[in-house]
């Protein structure tokens, strides 16, 4: 078992009158792609900031690449690449200049930064935009530039805080492809997201975080097995009928979830449940059988209430 690159033990962060992170313990292995999944305000970004050595913890232990970020802030940051939730590119500088200047913040030699910048522009598919203004880039390009910038110091760990929030599907897929390549090259990825498909695409292992605590930990497939069924049957009877129907299908599948607009039946075989429903004389307006996803796990663990 290789030495973990990130170790947290009972990590806690309190702000003046609320607890943002409430005793997180997890480890990330080198080369692993690890996800923090949770609703807004779950404490994901705060955790990322503590690991990124830009926030000091209230209590607990934390080691990043074997170093305590509280004491060795600059040394830790020198080995990390950070992609913050909101792009903070330097708008007064051109695209390539953003990489050059950022590299110099790490004290890297000018020549090395220059050649690395060209490689990264290729990697981020921005080579033809090298002398463009940052403001003229599309959302997806800005995101890729932010990732390229985070890689300028050849970091051992890349921290990505909601890497694809706000991007259109094409831009997201391009970004995932780039991140997947990094993973193949052995870069450790630590990312937060509230997109389930993103977590399933990118994470080897993840924790579901809610209100600063870990609700579950495992690989996406693991979590689905543990907290959901193989398949889900979604049926709609019209919003006025749902409640009445709910009483008649009690005991269907492993679990039934009655929502205002539809009913979900968790089961090993969705088709079988549908047949059973038809046999009972129920005629749903629409029905859909699908594979269970992380979203089902997520909603089960963190509840369906809107979290603001």
């Amino acid at each position: 078992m290789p030495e973990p690159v990130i170790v947290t033990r009972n990590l806690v962060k309190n702000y003046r009158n609320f607890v943002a992170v409430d005793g997180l313990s997890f480890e990330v292995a080198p080369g692993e792609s690890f996800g923090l999944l949770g609703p807004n305000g779950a404490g994901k970004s705060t955790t990322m900031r503590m690991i990124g050595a830009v926030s000091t913890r209230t209590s607990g232990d934390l080691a990043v690449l074997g170093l305590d970020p509280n004491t060795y802030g600059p040394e830790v940051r020198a080995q990390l690449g950070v992609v913050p939730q909101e792009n903070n590119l330097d708008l007064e500088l051109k695209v390539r200049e953003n990489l050059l200047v950022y590299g110099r913040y790490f004290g890297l030699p000018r020549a090395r930064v220059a050649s690395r910048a060209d490689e990264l522009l290729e990697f981020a598919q921005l080579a033809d935009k090298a002398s463009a203004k940052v403001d003229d880039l599309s959302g997806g390009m800005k995101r890729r530039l932010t990732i390229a910038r985070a890689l300028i110091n050849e970091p051992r760990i890349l921290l990505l805080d909601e890497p694809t929030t706000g991007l259109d599907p094409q831009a997201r897929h391009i970004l995932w492809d780039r991140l997947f390549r990094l993973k193949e090259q052995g870069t450790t990825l630590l990312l937060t997201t509230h997109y389930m498909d993103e977590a399933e695409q990118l994470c080897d292992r993840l924790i579901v975080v809610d209100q600063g605590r870990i609700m579950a930990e495992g690989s996406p497939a693991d979590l689905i097995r543990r907290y959901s069924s193989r398949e889900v049957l979604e049926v709609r009877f019209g919003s006025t009928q749902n409640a009445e129907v709910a009483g008649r299908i009690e005991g269907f599948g492993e679990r039934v979830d009655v929502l205002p607009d539809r009913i979900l039946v968790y089961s090993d075989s969705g088709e079988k449940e549908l047949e059973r429903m038809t046999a009972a004389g129920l005629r749903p307006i629409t029905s859909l059988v699908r594979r269970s996803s992380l979203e089902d796990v997520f909603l089960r663990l963190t509840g369906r209430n809107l979290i603001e």
Partner: protein
Amino acid sequence: MTGPQLSPSTIAASARPPRPFGSLYAGNARSVMARGWRATRSTNALVVLSGIVEPIFYLLSMGLGLGALIGQVQTEDGQTVTYAAFIAPALLAVAAMNGAIYDSTWNVFFKMQFAKLYEGMLATSLGPLDVALGEISLALARGLLYATGFLLVMQALGLNLSWWALLALPAVLLIAFGFASVGMAVTSYMKTFQQMDWINFVLLPMFLFSATFYPLSVYPPGIQYVIQALPLWHGVELVRALTTGQVDPGLLWHVLYYAVMIVVGLAATTRRLRALFLN
């Protein structure tokens, strides 16, 4: 605070003690300054230029224009000089102040609140002191540029009455350093544009009343003490003594005033940046 169970790499790192001020300063303020040069070159070259001509306009209008009506003025030391030679050094000190204040307040405010520039910088191996020193050095470089231009104009108009005037350059740097450090510290507390306007509200009367356009002796004694407590007055007196050649050891008090301003301003800025971005 104790670390987690020690791994080999932890032990290796712990054996090397953290550098003094290690988390505050990486010794790389020049990269912050280099960034500023690049940005200035591409976006605010014109703003920089306007800062050079502004005090020259003042000098021409008030020094030569108004000066024709006023004639001679007596300095604090009893020396009689032309009105232009009297206000030129004061305008030089004001130019240094304005250059430093512009860079360290509005520029810094924008970078902090909107561009999130410092957030990005502090995610690298830079510390808050690198950022503060880099930004302030940039303000100083600008102050130096303004001062050199203005001194040349003074020389051309025959307003430098002594070779001591050469020392006005380092004096101006000192003044700019003092205002830039304090300006950046104050800006770090500002949240809105309205609050930023308070800075102008303080600067304008200081510019008008710090014995800039007439000698301190015009004021009744009580008011004189108030003026003497203001930073710009010390700057004006220091530069005026140098360009008119009235040098005596008492000038060191002015130097000390700015030294204190610099230390207090830098310490406060570093503390604030740490609280804002590394808490």
